[in-house]
C-alpha cells in the first residue's frame, strides 16, 4: 500500500485550525504567556502544567509573608477561576519529565502525555544545595516557593538564633526575614562584602550597617564547613571553615539556583546554564520557546547571551514568547531589567547587568547614598543605586539606547546628573 503524504500549509493551518499551546511552568513568565496567547488566539487550546500545588502567586512578595508583615491572601495572584474564565487548562502537582520535540509531546511523572503544536518552557530553577555534612538536617531551609516561605515563617517564629548563608540577592531576603522576626543572627559570607560582584566595599558597607542595626551580624571570610545536629537530627550549629562555631536552630541557605535543564538533556534543544533562545524567545527548535529565568536569551542591548531572574523581565519574556509563538518574528525582547531591595529604610535598586562589564565608575554621597555603573565597551550595561533612585530613568535610557559614554565616567556619577551634562554625541541621544 502506498502512503500518501498530506502537507498542510502552516499559515493555512494557523488560520483555520485551532492551535494547541502547552506551557510548562505557572510562574509569572508562564502565566503572562497564557494571558497573551488567549488574547492573540481566542480559539486556541492552552494548557499550563506546573509541579506546584497552587496557581500563580507573587514570588517577590513571599518574603514579606515570611517576615510576618503580610497576610497570605494578597500573595495570591490567580485563583483557579482565573484559568477557567479564560478557558485555560491548569494542571497542578504535575512534573514534566520528558520532552519529545519530534513527536510534539511532553510526558509527566505519572506517564500522562500532552500533545502540543507550540511548547513554552518556563520551568525556572530549584535552590542549589550546600554540599556539606548535615546540610539536609531539620531546621535548614532554602527559599524559593510559597511553601518554603510558609515553612520558614512557621519555624523562624519559634527560633532563638539563626545563621544565613549566601551573600546575594536571595540571601539578603533570608537575613531580612530573621531580622523582621527579631531573631538574632549571623550572616556568613565567603568574601569580605555582601554581593561583592556588583558592589564595592563602600557600597556593601551601607548594607552591612543596615543589617547590624537589625541585629544581623555579617561575618566575612566565612561560610560553612559542616552543620552539627542534635539527637533528633535538628541543626544546632554552623561550623565555618575557620572552625568558628555559630549556634543556630534556624538556618537559611541561598547560594543560587540550579536551572531545571535536566529534562532538556538529550532532546537536541541547546542549553548551557539555561535554555538558549534568540531575541524572540525561541529555542533552536522552531516549535519550542522558553521564558523566565530558565532562559539564556540573546540580549540585544548587551550583544551577547544573558540570563535574568527579575520579575519584570520574566513577565515581559512570557508576553514576548507568546506573541512569537503565534507569529514568529512579531516582537523582540529588548529590556532593561531592575531588581530592588525594600528591607531597609533607604531604597536599593540594581538594573541591567551590574556584575558584568570591563570598566566601572562609582561615587558615595553619604552614609546611605551610593551609586555604581558597570560599563562595557564604553556603554552602560548595568548599575546599582542606593539611597536615591531618581537617576534610574536616565541611566536606563543611556543603556537602552547604547549611548557611548567613553571619557565621561565622572560626569555620570555627579549627584545631580542630567543627560544634558554629557558632551557631544552622547548628549544628543
Amino acid at each position, binding site marked *: 500500500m502506498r502512503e500518501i503524504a498530506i502537507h498542510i500549509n502552516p499559515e493555512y493551518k494557523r488560520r483555520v485550525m485551532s492551535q494547541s499551546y502547552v506551557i510548562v511552568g505557572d510562574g509569572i513568565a508562564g502565566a503572562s504567556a497564557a494571558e497573551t496567547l488567549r488574547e492573540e488566539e481566542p480559539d486556541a487550546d492552552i494548557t499550563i502544567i506546573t509541579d506546584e500545588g497552587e496557581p500563580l502567586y*507573587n514570588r517577590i512578595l513571599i518574603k514579606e509573608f515570611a517576615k510576618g508583615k503580610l497576610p497570605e491572601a*494578597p500573595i495570591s495572584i490567580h485563583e483557579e477561576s482565573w484559568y477557567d474564565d479564560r478557558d485555560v487548562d491548569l494542571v497542578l502537582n504535575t512534573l514534566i519529565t520528558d520532552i519529545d520535540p519530534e513527536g510534539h509531546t511532553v510526558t509527566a511523572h505519572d506517564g500522562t502525555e500532552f500533545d502540543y503544536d507550540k511548547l513554552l518552557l518556563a520551568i525556572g530553577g530549584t535552590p542549589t544545595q550546600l554540599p556539606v555534612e548535615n546540610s539536609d538536617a531539620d531546621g535548614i531551609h532554602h527559599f524559593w516557593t510559597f511553601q518554603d516561605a510558609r515553612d520558614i515563617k512557621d519555624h523562624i517564629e519559634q527560633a532563638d538564633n539563626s545563621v544565613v548563608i549566601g551573600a546575594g540577592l536571595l540571601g539578603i531576603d533570608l537575613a531580612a526575614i530573621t531580622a523582621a522576626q527579631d531573631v538574632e543572627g549571623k550572616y556568613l559570607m565567603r568574601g569580605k562584602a555582601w554581593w561583592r560582584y556588583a558592589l564595592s566595599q563602600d557600597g556593601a558597607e551601607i548594607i552591612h550597617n543596615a543589617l547590624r542595626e537589625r541585629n544581623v551580624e555579617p561575618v566575612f571570610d566565612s561560610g560553612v564547613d559542616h552543620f552539627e545536629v542534635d539527637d533528633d537530627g535538628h541543626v544546632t550549629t554552623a561550623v565555618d571553615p575557620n572552625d568558628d562555631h555559630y549556634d543556630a536552630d534556624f538556618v537559611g541557605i541561598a547560594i543560587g539556583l540550579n536551572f531545571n535543564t535536566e529534562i532538556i538533556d538529550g532532546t537536541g534543544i541547546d542549553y548551557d546554564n539555561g535554555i538558549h533562545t534568540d531575541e524572540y524567545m525561541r529555542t533552536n527548535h522552531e516549535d519550542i520557546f522558553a521564558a523566565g529565568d530558565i532562559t539564556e536569551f540573546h540580549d540585544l542591548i548587551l550583544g551577547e547571551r544573558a540570563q535574568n531572574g*527579575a520579575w519584570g523581565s520574566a513577565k515581559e519574556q512570557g508576553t514576548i514568547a507568546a506573541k512569537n509563538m503565534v507569529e514568529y518574528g512579531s516582537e523582540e525582547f529588548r529590556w532593561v531589567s531592575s531588581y530592588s531591595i*525594600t528591607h*531597609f529604610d533607604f531604597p536599593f535598586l540594581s538594573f541591567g547587568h551590574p556584575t558584568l562589564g570591563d570598566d566601572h565608575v562609582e561615587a558615595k554621597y553619604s552614609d546611605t547614598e551610593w551609586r555604581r555603573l558597570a560599563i562595557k565597551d564604553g556603554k552602560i550595561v548595568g548599575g546599582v543605586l542606593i539611597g536615591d533612585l531618581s537617576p534610574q530613568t536616565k541611566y536606563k535610557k543611556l543603556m537602552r539606547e547604547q549611548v557611548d559614554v567613553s571619557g565621561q565616567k565622572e560626569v555620570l556619577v555627579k549627584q545631580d546628573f542630567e543627560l544634558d551634562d554629557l558632551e557631544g554625541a552622547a548628549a544628543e541621544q
Partner: protein
Amino acid sequence: MSSQDGQPTSVADVTTPPTVVPVSDVPSSARVHHFDELSERTQVALSTATPTGRLDIDPSTTRLSRGDIVVFTEYLRIQ
C-alpha cells in the same frame, strides 16, 4: 477610598493627585504590589514623593488604584 461596589477606585477615576501614606497593618482583602512590579515612571514617582506624600504621576498611566498598598522601603497606601 473605594467605589460603591467595594472595589478599589482607579487613580484615573479621580482628578485629585494621588498621595501615599505609610501603613503598618495590611488587611487580607488588600491589593498589594511590590515596588518591582511597577512601571519605571511610577517607581521614580514613589521614590521622590513629596513630604506631603503627593505623587507626581499621571493618573491615567499607572496601574495603581486608590487603596492599593505598595511594598517599598515601608508599606505605602495609595489614596
